[in-house]
């Protein structure tokens, strides 16, 4: 608790407070990797010191866990939130006891969520995006209750809180729009358009009227002053001024951009363009494209290591899973790391020290640890069936897809 207070004070002094930073765990807590397995009835806990599966936290059958996120509550207990997409529920887990503390029904198909502490919710709140029924469940994690279910979203995919938790940015995958929610009111207060899709659709109406690729996630820069939202159909990244909540700029990128990933040093936003298989590098200070890296395959995540000097892009091609390596100091592509034939990479978490990433490989039910200094791979097998979302408490760039 004292440590949390210290971190808050530090953040205030820096003028760039981040509650996620406040969620910095104890060293012990950050030595666990949590893995949501879509086809196992448990969440796997991997001890990162021994690289062994140390615990299985049981779930009910057909839970189809999608994402997990860990935090330490105000009593110092490590908790885990798991979205149970198959059961339209979320589970709140007491990690030390290895039991589900509460199971709450939410909307249809909960997948992604974000956790934050705010004035209204001093014991943390979670916004859970129920993608199938276009709603956001507001979960009071102090009381383990759903306090409100907000509607009016279109396939809500990513949820991003600002640093003090006063508002949340909701990415609508089924629309070309970012919704901004006032956390005190728990309602949408502003909506931002991310592209003139009607003009884009003129090129190929059949294509755009049969599927929408909107916004996957809104990514904040570490200083919290701007947010980046890539629109899959518009081929644009919209830069949002988070103070005014207004569009600052739009940056053209490659085809079918997935989402933006922020480097921890705040210098770069990397945007994988899965249409033309490239990665756009955007200067986060100038809000302009710096360069484009070649990629290959469908990129489902980017992890930064070594303080942002290096980035790994997880890619899956027709017959191979690989990791593209980018040197951001010299702005060069450094080659690829082959993970294996006929595998599929899902998500990855970065260790708190930024020296290792842990990649979920869903086909062979494994986690691959990649050493950032040597690019050496260590495999942990049989972590569960179809490992999907991974998290380490304190990994500030934890994501899912």
């Amino acid at each position: 608790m004292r440590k949390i207070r210290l971190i808050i004070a530090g953040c205030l002094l820096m003028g760039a407070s981040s509650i996620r930073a406040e969620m910095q765990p104890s060293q012990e807590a950050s030595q666990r990797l949590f893995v949501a397995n879509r086809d196992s009835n448990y969440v796997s806990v991997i001890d990162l010191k021994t690289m062994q599966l140390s615990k299985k936290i049981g779930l009910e059958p057909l839970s189809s866990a999608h994402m997990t996120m860990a935090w330490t509550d105000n009593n110092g207990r490590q908790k885990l939130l798991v979205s149970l997409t198959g059961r339209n529920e979320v589970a709140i887990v007491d990690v030390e006891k290895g039991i589900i503390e509460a199971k709450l029904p939410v909307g249809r198909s909960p997948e992604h969520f974000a956790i934050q502490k705010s004035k209204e919710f001093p014991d943390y709140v979670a916004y859970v995006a129920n993608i199938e029924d276009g709603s956001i469940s507001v979960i009071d994690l102090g009381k383990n209750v759903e306090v409100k279910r907000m509607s009016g979203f279109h396939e809500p995919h990513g949820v991003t809180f600002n640093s003090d938790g006063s508002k949340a940015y909701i990415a609508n995958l089924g629309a070309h729009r970012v919704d901004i929610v006032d956390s005190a009111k728990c309602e949408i207060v502003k909506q931002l358009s991310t592209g003139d899709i009607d003009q884009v659709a003129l090129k190929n109406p059949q294509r755009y009227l049969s599927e929408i690729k909107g916004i996957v996630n809104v990514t904040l820069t570490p200083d919290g002053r701007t947010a980046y939202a890539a629109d899959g159909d518009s081929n644009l990244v919209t830069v949002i001024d988070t103070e005014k909540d207004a569009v600052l700029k739009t940056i053209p990128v490659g085809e079918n951009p997935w989402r933006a990933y922020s480097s921890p040093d705040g210098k770069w936003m990397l945007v994988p363009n899965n249409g033309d298989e490239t990665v756009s590098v955007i200067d986060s200070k100038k809000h302009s494209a710096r360069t484009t890296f070649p990629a290959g395959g469908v990129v489902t995540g980017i992890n930064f290591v070594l303080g942002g000097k290096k980035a790994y892009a997880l890619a899956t091609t027709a017959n191979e899973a690989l990791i593209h390596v980018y040197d951001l100091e010299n702005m060069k592509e450094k080659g690829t790391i082959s993970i294996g034939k006929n595998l599929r990479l899902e998500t990855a978490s970065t260790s708190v020290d930024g020296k290792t990433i842990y990649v979920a490989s869903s086909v062979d039910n494994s986690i691959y640890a990649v050493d950032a200094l040597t690019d050496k791979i260590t495999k942990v097998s049989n972590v569960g069936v179809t490992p999907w979302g991974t998290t380490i408490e304190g990994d500030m760039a934890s994501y899912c897809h």
Partner: protein
Amino acid sequence: MKKKVAELERVTFPPEKSEQIKKVAEYVCPLGHTTSSPPERFICPQDNLKVKERMTLIKVKLDRREEIGEKISGMLEEEFQKRVNVAIAGTGIVQHIASSLESTTKKQTFGQGSIDLYLLSRPMNNMLFFTNIESQGGQGPDSSIANQSILNNDTTSLPAVTQTDQARLREAWIQKSFSSQKFQFIIGKIDLTNYFDRNRVANDENSQFITGSLVNNPLIGNPSNGPGIIFLYDTRRGSSMGIGLQSADSSGVNVTEEPFSIAEFSLRFRVLEGQLGNIHLWGARNGRTVGENRDDYSAGVSLDQELGSKLIIFGRAGRAVRKNPVRDPHAWSVGLQIRNFITERRRDKLGLAYSHFLTPIGTGLSGEAENTSELYYSIFLSDHLTLSPIGQVMFHSAGSSLGSPQSNLFILGLRTQVTF
């Protein structure tokens, strides 16, 4: 128990979902803020800048039963659209000549009323069938005061001013729209002034100014309602154009031979902080094969402009070129309309206007010019009832074939309009 049932339903019978991609309008501010309905006066509340309307795509997920419900709603709506919709409007006008230099017209009071029955149906998609049957009774001051401006424009649909009570078919036409309603084609018995020389605040004698020269430009020279055709094209980007052709003598005989023709180009624009303005430029030719107006040409402009949230100003001007003129006439008018003039009366309207008409010197017209002004205050009493006290001053009338010019007429009136 209810909770248990809901829980059971949730787990055992989750509603099947279907996806639909819908094209919907959005209103986008320059700073990216977007809303699904237009903000007031099309101004963004965040930055006071003008919004842009555009279409966007959204994915909606419906329960199967919702989808069926939506289909049923759609079918019901379609069925409803096939039905004939009926509207009725009644107008009663009392006008009293309060002041006149002529003893013959002094203190006269006139009563006139009309009932309009509107029938609207949609025989097929993008097609509209419209009928207006009007019944009128009584007379206005124009039966006593010879003038060109027309002191009660509601009486003009009577073929002859002296004829009092009658019912007739004013309009009956079919409208077909194409290309998302960008193109419209109208054919039937039409009123050309519904489509040309329009003005937002000076174009309807039943709810705005009653004086004819403030309802339309007196120099258009269009025949009374008759058979004709109209083509309209709206770019949906602020400009539109139209061409209208009508039987010059309203008879329906020789409709295509030497018709009255009119063409118009219109612009819709926003100025300053997004206040809406319209300008209509038109040109007309009277192709009547017989009679004094053959080969008359006229051109004019009508404009209106919002200034702030309450005030709209307007103006009209026109000039005619006649084949055998003693003098080519011209006309102009200016005025304003103020909404919510009294703070507590949000839906009341006040109108003030002045019109000038330099007449052609011809049969019965010995006056040089005719100048008229009008002030009305429209009191909103309910969604169905409006009451309007009206004051008109004709500084000098030009006379007509019915009588000699007169000066300094002051007419008080009261108009009641009932709509259902």
